[in-house]
């Protein structure tokens, strides 16, 4: 076979290049460590009590909560029942917000993906709209809506849904960008319309990713809707604020609420991974003996 005589030259060039690269990596590493230490120093200096001095106290609050909860552990099942309705309200807010948000995000994402959008001019403005929806914290939207509409679950739901449109719209459109255009070309060649091309050509490719992002968002929204309860949107967050304040002696109830939220997140996670698997691999997955 043909061997080149300039192999030593190539080796020398490559070694020089590798040496340069190692040097750059080394410099980057030093800069990174310096930034890390410097940043910590700044943050620590601005901290009221100092990070290291406060460190031993970090576990006081959880210890209090756990201690009280442990003493009155026999009451926990009762608390679970007591707070179940508010948990359902919270999950309800999150569920409605995720559904509405995901539906709007679906269309928003298709319209904001280059190569798929029917009106390429609208792509950039639509993306900015999604950016704005994402940029405004949901708690701000919720506070404004509660001021306008009065307290309750509806303002919270709208606030979370708007944020969900922004967040999922961006993620969905990034998924769309990775979808293959070949099936879309194939469908266009038979004379299919835009919506047909999208639903039949793109959605089957991206559905598993859509689902997993939407379910992740659902988890995040459960947490968000619990937080919005703190500002008067009802649900389990309201109860958590009431029980968690210091000096009320209700830490056992707070612990029960934490356990409820924790359990909910675990259930949602398990259900979501089950659906994601069956959607990604389909029934053929089991027939093949799960090796391919």
């Amino acid at each position, binding site marked *: *076979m043909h061997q080149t005589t300039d192999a030593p030259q190539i080796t020398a060039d490559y070694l020089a290049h590798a040496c340069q690269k*190692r040097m750059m990596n080394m410099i980057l590493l030093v800069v990174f460590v310096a930034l890390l230490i410097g940043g910590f120093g700044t943050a620590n200096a601005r901290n009221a009590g100092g990070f290291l001095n406060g460190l031993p106290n970090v576990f006081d609050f959880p210890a209090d909560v756990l201690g009280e909860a442990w003493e009155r552990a026999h009451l926990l099942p009762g608390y679970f029942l007591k707070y179940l309705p508010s948990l359902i309200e919270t999950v309800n807010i999150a569920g409605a917000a995720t559904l509405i948000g995901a539906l709007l995000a679906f269309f928003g994402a298709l319209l904001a993906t280059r190569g798929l959008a029917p009106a390429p001019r609208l792509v950039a403005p639509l993306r900015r709209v999604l950016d704005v929806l994402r940029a405004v914290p949901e708690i701000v939207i919720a506070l404004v809506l509660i001021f306008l509409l009065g307290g309750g679950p509806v303002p919270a739901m709208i606030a979370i849904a708007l944020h969900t449109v922004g967040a999922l719209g961006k993620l969905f459109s990034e998924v769309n960008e990775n979808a293959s255009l070949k099936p879309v070309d194939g469908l266009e060649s038979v004379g299919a319309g835009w919506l047909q091309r999208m639903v039949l050509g793109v959605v089957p490719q991206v559905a598993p990713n859509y689902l997993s992002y939407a379910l992740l968002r659902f988890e995040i929204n459960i947490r968000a809707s619990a937080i919005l309860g703190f500002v008067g949107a009802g649900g389990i967050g309201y109860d958590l604020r009431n029980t968690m304040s210091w000096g009320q002696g209700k830490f056992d109830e707070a612990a029960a609420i934490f356990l409820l939220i924790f359990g909910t997140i675990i259930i949602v996670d398990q259900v979501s991974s089950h659906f994601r698997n069956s959607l990604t691999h389909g029934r053929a997955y089991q027939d093949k003996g799960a090796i391919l």
Partner: protein
Amino acid sequence: MLVISELTKTFGANTAVARANLKVDRPQMIGIIGRSGAGKSTLLRMLNRLTDASSGQILFQGRDVTALRGAARRGWQAECAMIFQQFNLVPRMDVVSNVLHGTLNRRSVLGSIFNLYPDADITRAIEILDRLGMARHAPKRAEALSGGQQQRVAIARALMQDPRIILADEPIASLDPMNAQVVMQTLRRIHEEDGRMVIANLHTLDTARRYCDRVVGMRDGQIVFDGTPEQLTTGMAREIYGASGSFSEAATSTEIETLDKVPA
């Protein structure tokens, strides 16, 4: 040297490899033929320990390969290089780095993450590339190369391992006839010059005939033929491929020359 006895692999209700027996007493170039799904890939993957065997044994120079665990298993994998149909290189890294991956078994995690390979290894990697006619592509990214070139980089990675055995799983199935020829000649040359054992899955008969000292035929997970290329008659080939009387060798050919030949 290499003894495979009663090697079996089952996936649920399906049996991919059924009680395979094979004995190799000196470094040979062996071609495994058979149609898709005959268990060729599974057999090779079990040899490399990418897939665990359901039952049976692989002995290499008296050592029970199937029983190796952890570091010992990875040590065996370093001795037993694998070449894949789709090359399985890291597309975004340069050619030399891909070849240097052949040394990962003896490198520390931290050193390899920061790309700190000894200069001697880099020199040797480029020597190996030069031997395969690939030295001028050394600084390019693997994804920028053609299929045949990528497969030669994969062979270079295998040689960097300095292996006792080279396993090649359909090394030319994704290549055009010219590149297929270059890759097969390269494997043959490595076998002859270095005396390494080469076991290649091939789905074309004439490639196996042309380049291998020994041909193994598999059908439905079983080894149904084991002999020299001369012993492989058209009748035997029909049985391996489960084909009817209309089967001709030219039908499975990827070589340009065979197209002119009269079907055997």
